[in-house]
C-alpha cells in the first residue's frame, strides 16, 4: 500500500497539477493526427496523472478513486480496438480496413479518419489502465515485504 504523503506543499501542488496533466493527456491523444502524439503517449500521460494522485494521496484516499476505477477497465481498450476491426469486417472489408466502416454520410477518407480516432482511444485506454495496474501490483508486493 502506498501511504499518503505528509507534506502540504506536495498535496497542494498535486491538486493543481493532476487536472492539468489529464487535460494535456487528452490534448495529446486527440491531436495525434495533426502533430506529434497519439494514443500511446496520450495513454501514458493519463496514466501518469493517475499515478500522481496515487503517489501523493495514497492508494486508499478518495482522490485516487479514478485510479481504482481504472483497474476495472482491464482490457476495455483492447476490446474497443478489436471491436472497430470487427465492425470493418461486418462492413465487408478486411479487419481494420476503416474504409469499410458502415457510417452513412461519410466518404472513405472521413471513415478512415474516424477509425484512426477510435483505435487511438482504444490504445490510450489500454496503456493508461496497464500503467496504473502495474503500479498497483508493485505496491501490493511492497505491502507484503513490510508486513
Amino acid at each position, binding site marked *: 500500500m502506498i501511504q499518503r504523503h505528509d507534506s502540504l506543499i506536495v498535496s497542494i501542488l498535486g491538486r493543481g497539477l493532476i487536472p492539468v496533466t489529464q487535460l494535456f493527456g487528452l490534448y495529446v491523444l486527440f491531436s495525434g493526427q495533426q502533430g506529434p502524439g497519439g494514443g500511446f503517449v496520450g495513454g501514458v500521460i493519463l496514466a501518469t496523472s493517475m499515478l500522481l494522485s496515487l503517489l501523493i494521496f495514497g492508494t486508499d484516499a478518495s482522490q485516487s478513486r479514478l485510479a481504482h476505477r481504472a483497474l476495472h477497465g482491464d482490457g476495455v481498450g483492447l476490446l474497443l480496438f478489436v471491436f472497430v476491426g470487427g465492425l470493418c469486417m461486418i462492413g465487408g472489408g478486411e479487419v481494420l480496413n476503416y474504409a469499410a466502416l458502415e457510417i452513412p454520410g461519410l466518404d472513405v477518407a472521413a471513415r478512415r479518419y474516424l477509425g484512426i480516432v477510435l483505435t487511438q482511444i482504444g490504445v490510450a485506454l489500454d496503456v493508461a489502465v496497464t500503467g496504473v495496474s502495474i*503500479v498497483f501490483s508493485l505496491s501490493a508486493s511492497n*505491502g507484503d515485504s513490510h508486513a
Partner: protein
Amino acid sequence: MTFAFEIPLLVLLILTAASAMLVKDLVSSVFILGSYSFFLALVWAWLGAVDVAFVEAVVGAGLATVLFLLTLFGTNPKDTRLRRPPTPWAAIVGLPLLGLLLMYGANDLPEFGDPASPASTHVSPTYLANSLQDTLTPNVVTSVLMDYRSFDTLIETAVIFTAGVACALLLRRDQG
C-alpha cells in the same frame, strides 16, 4: 551541418549512461537513467523523429522512473547499494574491439536522410504521398501506425495488456 548540438548531446549521453552504471547507489542510478532518457529524447527530436522523442521523454523519463523507484522501495535498504566485482580483463579488451567492429560496419550504412537509401525507396514514398488524401491525417506517423499498419498496433496493444495481466498475476498475491 553544424556540430554545435550533436557533440555536447552525445557526450552527455555517454556520461549519463556510464555514470548510471558506475554509481554505487541504485536510487541515484534510477534518476541518472531518467536524465539519460531526457537527453536521448533531445537527440531524437534533433534527428527529426518528434513522435519517438515524445514517447522517449514520457515513458523513459517519466513512467519508467516511477516503476523503478517503486520496485526499489519494495526492497530492503541494504539491497539498494551495490558492491561490484572488479571488471574482468576479457571485457576491457573485448568491448573496445567490438566497438571498433561496429564503427567499421557503420561505414556501409546509408547517409543520414539519403533519399536513395532502401528505407526511403520501398513503401514510404507511397505513404508520404497518399496519407493526407486517404485518411485526412497530416501526421504520417499516426496514419502509418493506426491505418496502414494497424494490425501491428493491435498486436502491440495486446502485448501491453499481457504485461499488465502478468504483473498482476505475479505480484498481487494477497488481494483479489
